[in-house]
């Protein structure tokens, strides 16, 4: 390279150089401002803890908790019994509360006006009860009947037990449900009413202890009873029973849990069916479904039998 190609600086090249320096300087300044005013403060704020660690404060302090599942532990308490006079007969307050609870818990199936036509009613078989008509009530429509139905549900139908609602609130629902049907509900059974009133007089409602889910995981993992894996017969054992066991069990540790869960069963055919039903996740090969009764009884005797022998000291 030679120096011949160089030209003396001109006004234009000076201006270009100045503009370049100005652009570079402002770029650096913008970068510093971005980091100084936005990125660094944001990072500092990130480091500040957002939530307090779980504590043993009562549940009242957990209002507005970010993660419902990690709310602090709270001790359970017993709500006192209520005076039957306040709940056994309908009152405007009870009906208003009943209407609110009905909208929350019932209307999705039974419909807003209780005609059994809520949005989820179509998926249910049998269809939800129409409260406006007196026909076909499974348990009857007396106060005590409806209270029982709300408390325990109806087996074989979509009606679940709403036992998590407080009894006094269930009574509000009972009165509201009865108010939805304009028909004559007939005379009440005085004896059953009195028994229900006594129940209100004597027992309150228990709100259980609550702990964070992470603590519940720790507790349940600790309480987990470990089941030792099944000892399969060694490969050298060529007896028919040994071959059968080695064929039937694909995962000895899972099979051990399955055997332990069903060991108290008396009926060996039922046990066999249960083991086949859960295969292969329960440690048995799916092919056990094809075994005949004699082979099954052989396997069940080998597994449950060895268990019983192991129990004896």
């Amino acid at each position, binding site marked *: 390279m030679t120096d011949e190609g160089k030209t003396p600086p001109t006004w234009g090249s000076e201006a270009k150089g100045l503009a370049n320096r100005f652009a570079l300087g402002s770029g650096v300044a913008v970068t510093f401002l971005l980091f100084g005013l936005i990125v660094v403060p944001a990072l500092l704020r990130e480091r500040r803890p957002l939530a307090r660690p779980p504590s043993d404060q009562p549940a009242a302090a957990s209002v507005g908790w970010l993660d419902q599942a990690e709310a602090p532990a709270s001790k359970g308490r017993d709500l006192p019994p209520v005076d039957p006079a306040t709940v056994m007969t309908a009152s405007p307050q009870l009906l208003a509360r009943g209407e609110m609870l009905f909208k929350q818990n019932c209307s999705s199936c039974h419909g807003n006006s209780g005609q059994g036509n809520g949005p989820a009613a179509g998926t249910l078989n049998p269809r939800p009860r129409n409260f406006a008509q007196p026909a076909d009530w499974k348990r009857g429509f007396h106060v005590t009947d409806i209270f029982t139905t709300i408390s325990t549900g109806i087996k074989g139908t979509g009606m679940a037990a709403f036992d998590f609602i407080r009894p006094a609130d269930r009574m509000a629902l009972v009165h509201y449900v009865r108010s939805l049907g304009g028909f004559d509900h007939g005379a009440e059974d005085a004896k059953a009413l009195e028994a229900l009133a006594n129940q209100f007089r004597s027992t309150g409602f228990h709100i259980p*202890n609550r*702990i964070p889910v992470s603590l519940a995981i720790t507790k349940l993992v600790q309480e987990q009873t470990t089941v030792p894996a099944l000892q399969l017969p060694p490969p050298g054992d060529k007896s028919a029973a040994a071959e059968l066991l080695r064929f039937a069990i694909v995962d000895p540790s899972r099979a051990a849990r399955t055997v332990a869960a069903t060991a108290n069963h008396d009926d060996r055919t039922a046990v066999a069916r249960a083991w086949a*039903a859960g295969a292969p*996740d329960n440690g048995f090969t799916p092919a056990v479904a094809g075994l005949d009764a004699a082979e099954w009884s052989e396997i069940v005797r080998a597994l449950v039998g060895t268990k019983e022998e192991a129990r004896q000291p």
Partner: protein
Amino acid sequence: MSSATFAVLGLFSDAHKIVDAANQIRPRKLGRLEAYTPYPVHGLHRAIGLAPSRLGRLVMLMGVIGAGLALLFEWWVSAVDYPLVTSGKALFSWQAFVPVMFEVTVLFATFTAGLAMLFALNKLPFFGHPVLHSKAIKGITRDKLALSIEATSEAFDAEAARQALLDNGAESVEIVPVPAWDRPLSLVGLLRTIAAIVAACLVAGVGLFAAEKLIPILPPMIHMHEQPKLNAFQGSAFFADGRGMRPAVAGTVARGHLPPAFATPEEAAALLSNPLPLTQSIAERGHKVFGDHCAICHGLVGDGVPLLSRAYGGKPGNFLSNEIRARPDGHYFGVLMLGKNAMPSYAADLDENDRWAAVHYIRILQRAQNAKDEDLR
């Protein structure tokens, strides 16, 4: 001297003479020898001391590396990262990897050959060789043979080189200077280059588009535009039922998936027990499954208060009610698989282990909301 010397060219007419001259001059180490001839001259490459090319060894090396990398990659993909048994073969079936290894070997080797030759060995780009600007170039491209002694350092003695060439039979000698136009890239030149590339892309794109649209596509050059086929879920008059897709034969069972051995959740409750031992990782798996699939309706703590409260009309089950807490594990499994009331089946979304992990997690939620007294300590 106003400018540095690039090389000293000596012109010859006779191929024997240039080879002899090169053999004489080479031991004197005046500079790097180079020859420019209109046709190949046997022995000249040896006379100017041209070493055998390193390209072959380089290509060999990169080819072997390519084969090794391909083997490593295929082993990692099919035996480590995504182990999938194919046709009952072992996960690491090297025979099946050979075609890909071959391809990658060729890829590495050819790219090495091309790029290394151009950029590493030939030292391109080199815009405008100074010899092209010499007076002798006309002779070189016709009937003259040129031996050039190139300057390799500041101490290059052009006069000695000139004398050496004349002494060894050169007919004429020319001193080629370093060209003066060797200047750095300018902004205008850069912008012009970019503009030219953009213009070339535009012209090519518009041209291709126009060609696709205007030039008729006729058989046999139909560019795969016509393919007799049925897309998924497309109707077809060929079959009696009017469907293009064929339904599976009745009773078909997917490999590894047994149909459930129960018809109702109650039956599942009687038959099944949770085969997964509850560990921290299973609990986390259950948390994930529950959070992804269940919590939107059953609530984060399983209390049946949906996260999508009013958008969805149903009243989801409350896992904390005494009735549901009393149900055995198998019941939950059965409901997950068969659905219940307004709840659909999750058999297609969750495999067996996920379902059992979710059952564990429901039990955890129930414990958290119905804790024992000693849990509070």
